[in-house]
């Protein structure tokens, strides 16, 4: 019943706080437009012609069973994986046509939070956050916090404060708990001053309480800065609570695409059968 693809027409875009709105952003701007995206690993066809639009400033959840292609889709959007076919327009630029410095400049404006935080283990939390500025500031300034100018260190510290970890700034990343690590990863994404953030199961490795807390913090930070958020989750509650818009994949095809208020738990559970 609910498995028919709903047109991504009328998406309720939340009120954009005046002052923080990006220049040129309006209610119809698309931060991500995917057309006919296919990805094959050898003979296995993991994505089978996915079309997807994500409205600027909107929060979208991507759900689907294990192996349905969620991570692959996210990776293809940033070209961490090379799409086999189709086009991906990210922040108005066709990412499949870019390489070298232009590709890096585009990636700089897009954060990516992984399931496993992917922090550099032997470096401090502060240095890991500072790495977020690497695309803006080349050279050794952003390799290690000791080499960074005052303004960048201040900004990195501010990002850590935003995720409530100012007191852990000097601690090595591999000595942090899972929840703390994930918050540092979020701070690193904030340091990019992103326009859009991708997150692949950002809280899947956290316990329920920490997961709830980090997901709420993450969502609040993104809303406050009017950042477009595109995240995957196996928590249907998170998808319904934190996303304005829902997309579901099943076997590499899009099966749901619509406002999250139009769907309920029962309908969503059907995609896992």
């Amino acid at each position, binding site marked *: 019943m609910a498995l028919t693809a709903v047109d991504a027409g009328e998406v309720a875009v939340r009120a954009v706080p005046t002052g923080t709105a990006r220049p040129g952003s309006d209610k119809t701007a698309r931060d991500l437009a995917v057309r006919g995206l296919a990805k094959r690993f050898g003979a296995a066809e993991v994505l089978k012609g996915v079309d997807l639009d994500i409205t600027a400033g909107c929060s979208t959840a991507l759900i689907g069973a294990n192996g349905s292609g969620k991570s692959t889709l996210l990776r293809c959007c940033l070209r*961490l994986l090379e799409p086999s076919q189709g086009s991906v327009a990210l922040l108005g630029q066709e990412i499949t046509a870019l390489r070298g410095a232009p590709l890096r400049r585009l*990636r700089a404006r897009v954060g990516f939070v992984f399931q496993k935080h992917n922090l*550099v*283990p032997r470096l401090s939390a502060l240095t890991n956050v500072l790495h977020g500025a*690497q695309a803006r500031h080349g050279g050794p300034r952003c*390799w290690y916090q000791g080499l960074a100018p005052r303004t960048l260190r201040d900004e990195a510290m501010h990002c850590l404060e935003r995720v409530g970890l100012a007191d852990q700034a000097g601690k090595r990343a591999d000595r942090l708990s899972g929840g703390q690590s994930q918050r540092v990863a979020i701070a690193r994404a904030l340091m990019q001053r992103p326009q859009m953030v991708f997150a692949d199961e950002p809280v899947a490795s956290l316990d329920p309480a920490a997961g709830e807390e980090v997901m709420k913090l993450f969502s609040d930070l993104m809303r406050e800065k009017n950042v477009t958020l595109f995240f995957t989750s196996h928590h249907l509650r998170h998808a319904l609570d934190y996303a304005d818009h829902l997309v579901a994949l099943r076997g590499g095809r899009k099966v749901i695409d619509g406002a999250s208020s139009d769907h309920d738990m029962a309908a969503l559970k059907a995609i896992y059968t």
Partner: protein
Amino acid sequence: MTPGGPIPAAAAARPTAALPPRFERPGALAFLIYVVALAFFVLAIEGSRISVTGFLEGLPHMGDLFVRMIPPDLSRIAPIGQALLETFQMALVGTALGVALSLPLAVCATSRLSPHPAVYYLARGLISWFRTVPDLVWALFFVVTVGLGPFAGTLALMVDTMGFCGKFFAEAMEETEPGPQEALSALGASRSGVICSAVFPAALPSFINTALFSLEKATRSSVVLGLVGAGGIGIELKVAMDLFEYPTAATIIICIFALVLLVERLSSYLRHRII
């Protein structure tokens, strides 16, 4: 089954399926290879002229040599100390230069980080060439190139270190976790950014360990390099032995032993401190 009663005999558990044989029976080809290898080893014993009687007959000479070395002659301790210092300086500088040059070479020889497959194979080839040519041969080569003296020895140690560190640095970098590197690429970091802020920090303990081993190795090699005129204490030892000045030779050997031991102790201390 009373508590504390006898444990049921394990012999009761007999498998119904047949057990595999204790040893695999080798195939005809494998058997042939074993026979040839054994025959070669027997010939090798013959070829190396190993002889128990020769050794036993030589023992008194060894004892004689020891007796004549005692007491060690300390009259030439100042020039010996000077040569020893030079030896260690060669080892230190050769290792430092070698480690510094190994880093870019090893990056090129790491499949994930190499700028181009051609560069990768070139770097791999260069490293194995540096490794397979013995340091004494490098020393002979550099003596011809830059003349007698410690500079030739330092260059030989540098090249030898590049062969050793290049291989192990590249291996350490291959083994680093790809996750943090992917995260940095995803946020738009350049290749040099990824290498310096994710790969090097992750591989650092291994780098330090390898560099310290390399220093130990270079200290031992630098003693020998003097024999071909590439600087260091080796030449002093050779001259003393050739002139039958055994007490002086004894002093030199003790000094070499002390230096090598000191460097090994220092390196294991640093290893524990830093890692």
